[in-house]
């Protein structure tokens, strides 16, 4: 049996495809994934709501018969565009390789839009990895771990375009249920016996931060404050 076949069976076992899995996670954590498709969906809902409030029910039915196809044609065009669809990435669909470039260098090469911990002068053991889709070679995540010799913080930061949800983050997404606002950015977080975990979305990227060997959420918040511009 080919790995792809097996992967297909697994998806069938879970009774959902990539988009469905992504949608299910987004439905649970809508605030984490603030992207174009979500905004379109909210817009479509507000149009429907206005009709419900201001038009008589019969008129709504008539108008809906005209408007729904229009909404599907305009709003629906986004969902048929692969660029805006959320995509759940299973382990068999991507490969991990080490990078000789740091997250800072990657950020600079892409216009400086990616946040990073600028600890390179005071840090050690910086390791950067890149996750690429096997089919398209598209980069779906950059992972960097670095140890700060001055503060004794050891972190792992994963950065993904928000439309991609990697399987390895599902557990963190499901477990980060507490929320706090830092610099007007919503942070979802949790801790386990060993580490602290935080998730933020900023400028169409989702950041998954692990503060390793430290279950102190306050320290995690300080680091997120440092990460944000």
């Amino acid at each position, binding site marked *: *049996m080919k*790995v792809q076949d*097996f*992967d297909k069976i*697994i998806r069938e076992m*879970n009774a959902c495809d990539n988009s469905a899995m992504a949608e299910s996670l987004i439905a649970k954590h809508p605030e984490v994934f603030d992207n174009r498709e979500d905004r379109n969906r909210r817009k479509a809902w507000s149009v429907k709501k206005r009709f419900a409030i201001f038009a008589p029910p019969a008129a709504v039915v008539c108008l809906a018969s005209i408007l729904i196809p229009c909404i599907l044609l305009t709003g629906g065009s986004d969902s048929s565009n692969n660029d805006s669809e959320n995509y759940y990435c*299973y*382990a*068999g669909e991507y*490969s*991990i*390789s*080490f990078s000789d470039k740091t997250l800072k260098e990657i950020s600079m090469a892409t216009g400086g839009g990616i946040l990073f911990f600028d600890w390179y002068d005071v840090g*050690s*053991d910086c*390791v950067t990895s890149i996750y690429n889709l096997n089919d398209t070679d598209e980069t779906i995540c950059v992972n960097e*771990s670095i*140890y700060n*010799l001055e503060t*004794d913080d*050891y972190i*792992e930061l*994963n950065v993904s375009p928000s439309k991609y949800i990697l*399987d*390895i*983050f*599902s*557990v*963190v997404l*499901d*477990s*980060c*249920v*507490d929320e706090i606002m830092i610099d007007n950015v919503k942070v979802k977080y*949790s*801790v*386990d*016996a*060993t*580490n602290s*975990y935080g998730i933020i979305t900023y400028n169409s990227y989702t950041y*998954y931060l*692990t503060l*390793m*060997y430290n279950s102190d959420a306050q320290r995690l918040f300080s680091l997120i404050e440092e990460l944000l511009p």
Partner: protein
Amino acid sequence: MKQKKILGILLAIFCLPLCGGWTTPTNADNESYYGGAQFISFYSNSEQISYSSKQIKTDIKTANGAPNYYPDATLPNGCGAAAGATILGFYDKYMDTIKNWSSVLPNGMYKKQDAVYVAQVMKALFDEMNTNATQPGVTENDFLTGLQNYTQSLGFSVNYDYIGNVSTLNYTSMKSAFSNNRAVVLFIKPDNLYSITNNSNTDTISTNYISANHILIAYGYYEIQYTLSSGTRTDTYLYVSPCVNLATQQYYKVTSSLVSAYIVDIK
């Protein structure tokens, strides 16, 4: 009557080998392979436990836990190599089992794997364990022999202390090993791994399913009792390095999937 008995015995002696009763099993034919072609780990579900109180009944683990290394795309079916490298990374804290590199940070905590030294060790173990030579993955014997040969080539000796399978597991020996900073290698059939995160009076237990035979490194024993509205609930886990790329601390429940367990000691 006596002649019939003798004839029966002679017939049995003659026929048994033909039936396979006396054949010696060979690793290549009869042993299970770990990290095989259908290997994949994936998130399956999560469970919320809301409790009024919880008490950690037992929490025994090695000093600073253990590292977790996992194979990259150049080492297909390489969970044996990753588990072996994790063992060497674990003992590198105490002796130089990964040359020219330290597996620990200045504060004594384990680092994540690096791009050069751990990768070299993993590649060497991958070859030493004859990974994918006959079938995808490695056998238990391939793993144990390969790790032993490689470690001996570094000038160290390895001792494996078999502590049982699911029905015979010697928990006393295992806990004692953890207390004495010894790692335990677990050979398992497909099964779940768990992560436990805490939020106010709720624990979330998330499940990752490992779809093929796999090798884990255990380094602790954890027993927790929840007081629920419906009574109490006690969960028992082993702290494990999953030897796959998972984002959270992982636990394993000793279930029917446990094929065998060995305390690994390197000197």
